[in-house]
């Protein structure tokens, strides 16, 4: 029972970490820009949230599989195969949870007053310093919310993972897969225990996020919003 839990945590943490970096950079780039085609690109970014995971799994399989364009490239150049390894589980989890990170990060960046960044520029700051000292600290609550949400989503990923990573105990069998196959084989006790574990994890993450953001809100209200 321990193996799928450890594997799930590893996969979800790495996937959420990748999402956090990519989502932050992409959201920051998109938040302050307007160009034709932006709407289309953002629709595509949000697609994994509304498509059935099986569709994503199929797409990833076509892309990363032995005969897929990316899969063949990796096989020929690096000699690695992605599908049916735990890397595939990470990719599936990262893709499925990416929209949650992106959406939170974009809302967070949009909420940062542009005039604060402008003020920093007139005070001699280059773009990197503006981002590190002003934008990031002010957007950080929203970014953290995005990380927690995408982590929770990555933890629960099932459909796409099954399609490109398969169900290999000890290698790609995460908690959701282990539950499904435990029920299949009639091992109700194992299924029930895993259900309890993953529910506790999800509730814990969301509970922490809620109480943390409420605390954050209270400190803001106590002093009155600085920019109001």
């Amino acid at each position: 029972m321990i193996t799928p839990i450890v594997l799930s945590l590893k996969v979800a943490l790495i996937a959420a970490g990748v999402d956090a970096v990519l989502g932050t950079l992409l959201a920051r780039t998109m938040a302050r820009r307007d160009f034709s085609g932006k709407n289309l690109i953002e629709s595509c970014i949000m697609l994994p949230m509304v498509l059935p995971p099986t569709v994503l799994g199929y797409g990833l399989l076509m892309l990363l599989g032995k005969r897929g364009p990316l899969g063949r490239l990796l096989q020929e150049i690096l000699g690695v195969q992605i599908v049916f390894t735990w890397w595939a589980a990470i990719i599936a989890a990262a893709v499925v949870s990416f929209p949650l990170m992106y959406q939170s990060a974009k809302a967070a960046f949009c909420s940062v007053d542009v005039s604060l960044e402008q003020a920093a520029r007139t005070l001699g700051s280059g773009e990197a310093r503006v981002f590190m000292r002003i934008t990031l600290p002010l957007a950080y609550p929203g970014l953290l919310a995005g990380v927690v949400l995408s982590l929770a989503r990555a933890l629960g990923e099932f459909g796409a993972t099954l399609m490109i990573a398969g169900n290999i105990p000890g290698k790609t069998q995460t908690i959701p897969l282990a539950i499904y196959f435990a029920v299949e084989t009639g091992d109700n006790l194992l299924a029930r225990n895993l259900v309890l574990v993953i529910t506790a994890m999800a509730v814990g993450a969301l509970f922490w996020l809620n109480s943390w953001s409420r605390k954050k809100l209270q400190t803001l209200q106590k002093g009155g919003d600085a920019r109001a």
Partner: protein
Amino acid sequence: MLKAAIFKKLPNFAVEAELAIDQGILVLFGPSGSGKTTILNCLAGLQKPTSGQISLGDRLFFDSARNVNIPARLRRIGYVFQDYALFPHMTVKNNTLYGMPSSAMLAKKNAGNANALAEILAMLRISHLRDRYPAQLSGGEKQRVALARALMMEPDLLLLDEPLSALDADTRCALQQELKKIQRIRNIPFVLVTHSKKELDALADTVVFLNNGKVATPAAQKIPLGWATGQWA
């Protein structure tokens, strides 16, 4: 000496103005939406004019003909924003010191900074607020902190966007006097934007009237002739 000829096309109208000031306070006067803030942003380097030229002393900031556009961070122009734009996550002290280099290598210089900081906070009478956050300040206090932050970097020019409009009458009166005093102490030109005739009366050494983005005559602004005594030429 600030010299600027700015033409900036906006979605609804175009701003076109020529300014020149050597010392004292230049007031940009006009109703809301007449392009005053756009001019300040162009001077500061936050917006790029469609065409024109901006220079301060012997430093050229912008020249559309020669494709020169020095970024805001290198212009050394202090800017007090209309909504103050104080950094909400930093104390008054850290807001004021933001424009200063602060790495460990500059520790020696920082000692000098500490003195300059104490001096500026004392001048603006906000020394007792140094460890507060902007959310814990009144409007007048925020305005003083914004001024301190802009002055701390020892700018060559100070821009003020409606610096007094959000304040109550008493605070406004006190700050007016102080602005005038600070300008004399620092001896750098100020460009101040306002739509209040009272402020115009109290502060202006030179004035530029703006209407719909164009420089207008005082008559077009319905300025009573009693205003000042022909200081604007």
